[in-house]
């Protein structure tokens, strides 16, 4: 992905009256990548995708497709296409007519259209007999595939997705996420996907861009976003997390209230340095928290009272109330289940490798 980007966004601004929905967005999208833009509702991700496909005009900035400006090109002249949240299938047409629509618009002969439609039905694991089926008679998952097939029939340079899986039930969604990733691998097309579900993003994407209030907060591969979030927003958005306020003290060591720190035997520089007086946030994922049997130690130690236990299927989640009333979340695989009773006093520990430091103080308690 070192070559020139297929799509380049430069300083994209979108205002609705006095409200600025997008603040100078810059983004390069590489050919063939699966990029997911994730953000809570109202973060501007839908606005952005509407600009990219040409359904809205941008206020400022440039969109370049392979170096050519397309931001003034009307939607029907852009070589991109989108799978809608509602799918936007044409209810009065059969599955075949839906898939063939972009070809029909281009004046492709009926026989060739049909050949292509049948190929796409195969590609999306739909029976060929569906060509004649009314699109309203299809199930949710089938409609999803029809919408995909129709978009692929258009043969777009970039395929955009506006949360197309959000209306489906959990199991079907999980299956289609994998199918979509598989489809991406097989077609080699550039996919740009927006969603509010981080899980969806993690399963499918090469890169994830996290959006908040009309700006990108972090753009990186999934692993990096998960283990090295740039701020508290990203850390919390990426699922369950424990955040501890810390403050730098003399000698490059920092102090966390209610926490014993035993790194390198309890002192000295251990790589996570904060200047004296500087504040930050320590990020620890619940799966890196351990219950410490007596006699064992860890780099960081906390004690508290076991408050609650939740079964999450393959994992068990525990909530431990530490002094100050804050809750710490711990997750264990089912086979490593902790055998304490609720109300017991427990000691928690985690090690330096599991820790990520954000140089941003905690304004909000989670």
């Amino acid at each position, binding site marked *: 992905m070192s070559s020139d980007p297929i799509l380049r966004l430069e300083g994209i601004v979108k205002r609705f009256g006095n409200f600025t929905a997008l603040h100078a967005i810059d983004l390069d999208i590489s050919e063939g990548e699966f990029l997911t833009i994730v953000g809570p509702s109202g973060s501007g991700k839908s606005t952005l995708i509407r600009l990219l*496909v*040409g*359904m809205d005009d941008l206020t400022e900035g440039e969109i370049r497709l392979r170096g050519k400006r397309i931001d003034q090109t*009307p*939607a*029907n*002249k852009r070589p991109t*296409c*989108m799978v*809608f949240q*509602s799918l*936007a*299938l*044409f*209810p*009065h047409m059969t599955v075949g007519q839906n898939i063939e*629509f*972009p070809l*029909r*618009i*281009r004046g492709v002969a009926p026989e060739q259209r049909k050949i292509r439609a049948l190929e796409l039905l195969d590609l999306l694991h739909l029976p060929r007999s569906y060509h004649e089926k009314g699109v*309203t008679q299809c199930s949710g998952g089938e409609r999803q595939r029809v919408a995909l097939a*129709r*978009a692929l029939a*258009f043969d777009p340079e970039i395929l955009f997705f506006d949360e197309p899986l959000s209306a489906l039930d959990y199991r079907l969604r999980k299956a289609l996420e994998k199918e979509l990733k598989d489809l991406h691998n097989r077609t080699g097309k550039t996919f740009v996907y927006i969603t509010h579900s981080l899980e969806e993003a993690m399963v499918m994407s090469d890169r994830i861009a996290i959006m908040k209030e009309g700006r990108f907060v972090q753009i990186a591969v999934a692993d990096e976003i998960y283990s090295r979030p740039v701020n508290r927003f990203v850390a919390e958005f990426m699922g369950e997390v424990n955040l501890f306020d810390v403050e730098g003290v003399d000698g490059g060591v920092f102090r966390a209230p209610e926490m014993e720190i035993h790194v390198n035997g309890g002192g000295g520089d251990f790589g996570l340095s904060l200047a004296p007086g500087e504040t930050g946030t320590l990020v620890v994922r619940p799966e890196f928290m351990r219950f410490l049997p007596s006699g064992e130690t860890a780099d960081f130690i906390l004690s508290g009272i076991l408050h609650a236990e939740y079964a999450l299927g393959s994992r068990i989640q525990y909530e431990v109330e530490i002094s100050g009333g804050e809750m710490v979340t711990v997750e264990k695989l089912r086979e490593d289940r902790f055998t304490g009773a609720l109300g017991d006093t427990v000691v928690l520990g985690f090690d330096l490798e599991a820790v990520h430091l954000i140089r941003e103080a905690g304004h909000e308690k989670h």
Partner: protein
Amino acid sequence: MKSIDHKLGFLNALPLTLVLGVSFLMPLLVIAGFSVMPQKVFSLLHLPDFSSFAVILKQGYYKSLLWSLGMAAAATVILFVICWPLAYGMAKVFGRFSLVLTIAVVMTLFVSENIRLFGWSLTLMKGGLFEGHMRAWFGVGFDGLLYNVPIIIFGLVYVYFPFMLFPLAQGISMVPDDARQAATDLGATRLQVLRHIDLPLAAPGIMVGSLLTFVLAAGAAAESKILGGQAVIVIADDVETAFTFGQNWPLGAALSLILILIIGAIAVYGISKVDLDAIMGRKGR
């Protein structure tokens, strides 16, 4: 359970079925009975006789039928073209202004059709509002705009405007915005979106509006009388004359029957082509 539902449904439908049977079907049967009476005879004791239908052919009554159907068709087409953009605006663009427009259009229905047509007559006649002003201000006089076929069609268009506008707006409002956007996104031009998305998806509204205007216009007499003078005789005029002035009930009945059959056939064909439940809102998609 199911059989109780069925019985209840039947019982609920019964009163209206009876009312319709008596008030709608009976007159039709009476008309049909009259139409096969011998000419100029009033007797219920006779064999069916189709002489009235022969008279219609021989004496050229079919011409007025053709005029009626032709002008109704023209008015329907013109109304569709005029109302489409307006209905589109009402359904998708105007927002609250649609309500104002709806009220304005409905208000015209509060005044009797004849009075409104006489208003147009006064406006368009020689020495009327329009020609009189033209003569007074610019010195160009002309013969007035009444008493021809186009003005009758204008009258039909004017009178039946709401009957096209509202069903059309209803039909267009059923076209999902995202389908239109998706079609554009997939490369369709505005014209292609109109042809492949808007028209087929608004078809129930188009059909209802067209049938209403066509059926009403085909049976209309006031426009041709008031605005058209004697330029052409329409079928409704002939029916009225036959029943009243002519006292030839079999002829009037035969003319009515032919009109009813033609219009009925068109209506049944049209309705069979679209999903009326969609516009009536019974079937949720």
